[in-house]
């Protein structure tokens, strides 16, 4: 299906990926593949305790080992003012701990050795003496007056970090007072981990002669990281080069700066040798950015015939030991205030309190789009609960309350301006595709026949908000959240495109080339996309929160149009015509004189002329750059249907069908979108069914590696059906919206709604994630639905 353009790899085509060749032949270059002369290895000594005072650190035994070059502690880093580092949320995180560890596996010391085995041996021999303290691991306990204080360094007698509010409290209270029906539901969005298959790591290389620091690192935002590196280290920014090479998945995990990067860079600076740090899986799950951990109470108010009047919510947010959430500085709860969802809700209010606990820092990660996962989960669960309360069909409750197609751009009760949408069309298509009525009949029959398995049908009709964002609202550490593209067309008619965003597998090398191919009429194979090197790429804010297409994609289209404008003037010169008489054909990529199509120059001929026969009033060459400050976010949406079978004997949930309709506006490459959806839904299934980072009361991580933090395999993920509608973003240069995170945002509530739906006839309202068999069996049993094994 083509939406527009030509047939040489432009918009809408399933172009096979340019990046595949090196990956299927093992020729990708990831951080741990990098080898440099004299390169040393860094291993971190980590705390075995969740909360403890550090009494003494003795590195002497390690230092005496043959292959150990250095043992580094906070004292050593303090000499270079690097013992602490700022977080993106205006907090301060210790790089290595001096006085007190605040979560298990926290960084205490580092060993630098000649190879990774020796570094590990050395780390074993660093002796650290601790005095253990009582720990607090969840937000509700951290709120208690007698809770252990996590952050004594802040000299406040509380674990409270901040209170955040959105919406109109008074109007919402009035809506609830006026309502015929109100429903309240507690729900815990559990702590998850993005767990990219490649962990975090870097190779830091200080060149003493050039006074230049080069760091190859697993970075989703290399330019922002360079700026922060420069600010923290004092090395001038033009002498810091960050390179994000091939990255084995990011999923938000590789946005923050972690202590390991700083230690490796500091060690390289001091030792004047390259230093590699690559964490192991358990270190990744236990110490790098987690996701979610929102303890939510939601309330929804409606009339007796199902019109939603208001939504109110209170949230306890667990931020771990430091507030290191990676999000725009003015949004401490991310974009959570999108919690009114796809519905025309007249009054809404949220209040949120965030707490420190003895757990790893994080919160913003794992396809969350800055807390949109939590927001969508809240509203989609509440709408389902309301439908149950009213004994109404959940599809009809949604239809009744959708923001109507003609109401866009729509101003929500919490202050977002949704760009475009046609929710009813998407829902209709979804219901028809899965034969919703037939499923409801089958469900009723099973109940009637007292079958051993129950059928549940779950819906999620969600609205995303991606593409941060307008510079006046959105900044990362002060840097406005624009993005950029630089296009250079060479004399022979091929082009090099450099972008400020940075792929971690989403296919930018292919799709950004498609945008340029479309806009310039070039063959996609003639367009090479580069990213990730701060020395050569234009400054951008990086790739996360599905912002690449909305912001970087817009910059790319605008830069290409600037090239096309100039090309037109070159073409006019070639054709010996007035510029206003020259027209460009998207189909052929050629310029011709209006009304005289036989007088034509191709884009390749124009490229040559711009170097070899440039017009007198133009600079030679054919290139352009654009830094794009988006006027608004993009608001893609989706209609998901999940059909489950729940085994009444075991509590096992089988996902029988998963249908995902996504509307992300104009589609650059449907094949790649489909792959993003498959992966995102799989993560949503992992979220709903398996994944949970857990701690015991002493602060020990009890699910912190792949033995316990369970990722779905090919056996847990069903075949999925993808579908789409096209509702372009009116403000975006090519009408495209972001989509990468939609499936992980949209799918968990569909799955939970399906499981609840299977048991709704017995009064079941909620099951917390992950919905493991034992958890579901408890709910079945409490509802009188369980069956003895036959």
């Amino acid at each position, binding site marked *: 299906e083509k939406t527009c353009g030509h047939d040489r790899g432009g918009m809408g085509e399933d172009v*096979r*990926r340019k*990046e*595949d*060749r*090196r*990956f*299927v*032949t*093992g*020729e*990708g*270059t*990831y951080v*741990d*593949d990098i*080898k440099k002369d004299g390169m040393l290895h860094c291993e971190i000594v980590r705390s075995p305790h969740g909360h403890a005072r550090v009494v003494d650190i003795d590195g002497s035994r390690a230092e005496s080992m043959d292959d150990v070059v250095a043992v580094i502690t906070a004292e050593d880093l303090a000499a270079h003012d690097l013992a602490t580092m700022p977080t993106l949320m205006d907090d301060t995180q210790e790089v290595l701990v001096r006085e007190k560890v605040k979560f298990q596996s926290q960084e205490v010391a580092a060993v630098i050795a000649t*190879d*990774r*085995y020796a570094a590990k041996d050395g780390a074993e021999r660093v002796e650290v003496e601790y005095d253990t303290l009582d720990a607090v691991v969840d937000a509700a306990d951290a709120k208690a007056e007698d809770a252990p204080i996590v952050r004594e360094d802040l000299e406040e007698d509380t674990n409270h970090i901040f209170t955040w509010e959105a919406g109109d409290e008074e109007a919402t209270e009035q809506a609830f007072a006026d309502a015929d029906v109100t429903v309240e539901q507690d729900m815990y969005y559990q702590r998850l981990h993005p*767990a*990219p*298959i*490649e*962990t975090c790591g870097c190779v830091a290389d200080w060149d003493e002669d050039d006074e230049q620091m080069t760091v190859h690192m697993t970075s989703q935002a290399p330019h922002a990281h360079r700026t922060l590196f420069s600010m923290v280290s004092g090395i001038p920014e033009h002498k810091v080069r960050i390179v994000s090479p*091939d*990255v*084995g*998945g990011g*999923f938000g995990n590789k946005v923050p700066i972690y202590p390991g990067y700083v230690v490796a860079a500091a060690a390289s600076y001091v030792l004047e040798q390259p230093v590699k740090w690559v964490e*192991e*899986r*358990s270190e990744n799950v236990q110490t790098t950015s987690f996701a979610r951990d929102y303890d939510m109470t939601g309330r929804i108010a409606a009339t007796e015939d199902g019109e939603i009047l208001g939504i109110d919510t209170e949230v306890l947010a667990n931020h771990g030991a430091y507030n290191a959430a990676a999000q725009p500085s003015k949004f401490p709860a991310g974009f959570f205030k999108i919690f009114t969802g796809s519905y025309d809700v007249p009054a809404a209010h949220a209040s949120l309190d965030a707490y420190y606990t003895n757990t790893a820092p994080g919160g913003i990660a794992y396809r969350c789009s800055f807390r949109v996962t939590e927001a969508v989960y809240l509203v989609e669960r509440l709408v389902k609960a309301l439908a149950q309360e009213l004994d109404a069909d959940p599809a009809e409750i949604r239809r009744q309350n959708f923001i109507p197609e003609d109401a866009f751009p729509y101003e929500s009760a919490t202050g977002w301006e949704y760009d475009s949408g046609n929710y009813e069309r998407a829902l209709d298509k979804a219901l028809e595709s899965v034969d919703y009525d037939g499923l409801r009949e089958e469900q009723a029959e099973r109940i009637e026949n007292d079958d051993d398995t129950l059928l549940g049908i779950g819906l999620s009709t969600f609205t995303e908000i991606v593409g941060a964002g307008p510079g006046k609202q959105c900044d990362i550490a002060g840097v406005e959240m624009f993005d950029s593209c630089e296009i250079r067309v060479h004399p022979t008619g091929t082009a090099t495109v450099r972008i400020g965003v940075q792929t*971690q*597998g*989403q*296919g930018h090398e292919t799709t950004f080339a498609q945008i340029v191919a479309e806009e310039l009429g070039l063959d996609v194979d003639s367009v090479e996309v580069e990213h990730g090197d701060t020395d050569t790429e234009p400054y951008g804010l990086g790739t996360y929160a599905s912002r690449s297409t909305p912001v970087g994609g817009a910059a790319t289209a605008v830069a290409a149009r600037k090239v096309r404008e100039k090309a037109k003037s070159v073409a006019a010169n070639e054709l010996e015509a007035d510029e206003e008489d020259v027209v460009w054909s998207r189909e052929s990529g050629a310029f011709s004189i209006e009304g005289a199509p036989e007088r034509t120059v191709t884009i390749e001929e124009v490229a040559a002329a711009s170097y070899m026969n440039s017009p007198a009033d133009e600079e030679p060459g054919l290139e352009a750059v654009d830094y794009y400050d988006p006027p608004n976010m993009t608001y893609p949406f989706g209609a998901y249907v999940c059909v489950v079978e729940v085994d009444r004997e075991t509590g096992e949930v089988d996902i029988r069908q998963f249908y995902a309709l996504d509307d992300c506006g104009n589609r650059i490459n449907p*094949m*790649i979108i*489909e*792959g*993003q*959806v*498959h*992966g*995102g*839904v*799989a*993560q949503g299934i992992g979220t709903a069914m398996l994944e949970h980072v857990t701690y015991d009361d002493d602060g020990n991580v009890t699910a912190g*590696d*792949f*033995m316990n933090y369970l*990722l779905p*395999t*090919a*056996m847990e*993920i069903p*075949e*999925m059906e993808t579908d789409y509608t096209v509702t372009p973003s009116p403000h975006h240069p090519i009408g495209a919206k972001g989509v990468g995170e939609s499936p992980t945002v949209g799918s968990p509530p569909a799955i939970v709604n399906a499981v609840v739906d299977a048991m709704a006839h017995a009064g079941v309202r909620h099951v917390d994630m992950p919905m493991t068999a034992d958890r579901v069996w408890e709910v079945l049993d409490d509802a009188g639905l369980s069956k003895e094994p036959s």
Partner: protein
Amino acid sequence: MTEKEITFTVNGTERELRVEPRKLLVHAIREDLDLTGTHIGCDTGNCGACTVYKDGEAVKSCLQFAPQADGSEITTVEGMEDLPEAGMGESDLHPVQEGFHEMHGLQCGFCTPGMMLAGKALLEEHDDPSETEIRQNISGNLCRCTGYQNIVKSIEYAADVLAGREPPE
């Protein structure tokens, strides 16, 4: 630590190494032989990113010591283009590699080498595996990007090429 001498054939070439007995095979392959297509994704034997084809089966090279590979024959991703089946499809690649490219069976590419070698091992046993057989046979290989669906199609594509059937569009 006393080092051991080992000799093994990797991608058709005999290689000799001196390694500590505790050295994991995956590190010997990546660091001593510079074959960095084989990856490390976990520390507990779960993810399968380190899967190589060893003496006729897919093995996780993080769960073996290098000396255990003494005398063995190993294929890593870098050797796939040199196998006799390479070029049977429309490219010079091994049909499994071509299948992953054509069916969009990879995104970040990190699980891909291990996943492809697990697929190759399966196709040596079954020339026309069912979807369930494919899913079972790659269940020791975790992927975080693709949701597996296109990986299943990629292996089906390769099965078709290897058996002389017409692969899907």
